[in-house]
């Protein structure tokens, strides 16, 4: 456990030392969200109707952007070998990597998501639902993504392969996340999709680190 905390602290320190790179997903999300009104037209009512969906697509794509780097650096400089041979439970270390990815990408996106939605003119009453959906969904994105990133780390150029692996797996998160916002916006009850997200998170919390550890073993071989 102490080793996992040390890994988390190291990754956050690295994030801070490379903070210009760490901002990329946020800037990407901002750009994509800005493009939609330009393409769809400035009708406030239509934008408000699709704002939740736009924010979710943006968040899924933005979190994908930083995934390839999650294990790439550690694999290239031999740190991943050290993690695998140090005798600590690899699943805990994988969990720390996932948490670091979420703090670096998912958490800022969760906080900026409602802002983007507001920019698109979303009904303010749905913002709490969006925030809750993002808070439940972005850790799932980090965990699913980390498993796939560990699998593809042995490949030099895995960018598009990683996207092909991750995107189908994140579709449920997207559907339930956007569904919750949509339900709240149309006067429905968003609790069902939110509960599905929460159930997914509860399932992934113990299982994803184990899967990711197995993927690291395959990736370092």
């Amino acid at each position, binding site marked *: 456990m102490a080793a996992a905390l040390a890994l988390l602290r190291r990754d956050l320190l*690295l994030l801070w030392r490379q903070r210009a790179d760490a901002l990329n997903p946020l800037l990407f999300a901002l750009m994509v969200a800005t493009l939609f009104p330009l393409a769809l037209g400035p009708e406030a009512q239509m934008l408000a109707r699709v704002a939740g969906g736009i924010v979710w697509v943006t968040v899924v794509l933005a979190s994908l952007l930083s995934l390839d780097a999650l294990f790439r650096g550690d694999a290239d400089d*031999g740190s991943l070998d050290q993690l695998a041979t140090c005798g600590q439970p690899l699943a805990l270390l994988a969990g720390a990597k996932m948490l670091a990815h979420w703090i670096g990408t998912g958490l800022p996106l969760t906080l900026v998501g409602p802002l983007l939605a507001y920019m698109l003119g979303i009904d303010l009453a749905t913002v709490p639902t969006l925030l809750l959906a993002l808070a439940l969904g972005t850790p799932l994105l980090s965990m699913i993504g980390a498993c796939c990133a560990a699998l593809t780390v042995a490949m030099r150029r895995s960018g598009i392969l990683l996207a092909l692996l991750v995107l189908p797996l994140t579709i449920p998160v997207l559907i339930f996340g956007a569904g919750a916002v949509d339900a709240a916006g149309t006067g429905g009850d968003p609790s069902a999709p939110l509960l599905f997200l929460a159930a997914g998170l509860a399932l992934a919390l113990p299982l994803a680190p184990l899967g990711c550890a197995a993927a690291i073993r395959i990736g370092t071989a």
Partner: protein
Amino acid sequence: MTAFDSPAPPLFAARGLGFSRDSEIIFSQVDLDVGSGDALVIEGANGAGKTTLLRVLAGLLEQTEGTLSWQGVTLADGQRVAGSMAVLGHHLGLKGELTPIENLRFRVALGGLRHGMTPAIALRSAGLEGYADVPLRSLSAGQRKRTALAALLLSPAALWLLDEPYANLDREGQRVVDRMLETHCLRGGAAIFSSHGLFTPALSRMHTLVLSGVTA
């Protein structure tokens, strides 16, 4: 049979070890015994499979044939005794954005700390005094290697697995490696390391294993 008749099992042993990748045999039928105080140097030309053998020994790759044992107990595929070995590979496992001392503190958190050692003492022993707070990225390849050697000094592990420990080092650095290996073995540790034969270390209890490449 009494306990006196059976010698203590070696720390780490391999029997009939082999590894093939996509039906290409990298090495096969490797037997080795490393006891407390032993240093085993793996020699062989470039591409003879030294790195692959060390990765198999470290548990990063699973052997395709043969068995490994730790203190006489056979290890299951990929299983290693936690904290039993410290690994130094071609890639040093250090972060360029962090300073040597930050790197070492992280390695201590991962692998534990040898009794009586601190990151500062280890850096001094590796000849890096005064570089503790410089980002590793701005150090030379040899100085980075010395940082990785310092990480090795901090580790409480009994068995060292080192891939080309002498590479990138100046004469003084090579002597540092010699001294480290000598001290580690005198303390009852053991080391397995690879060398392409350009530099011959002078260690008291040293054995040599020659990998000839295609042994099939």
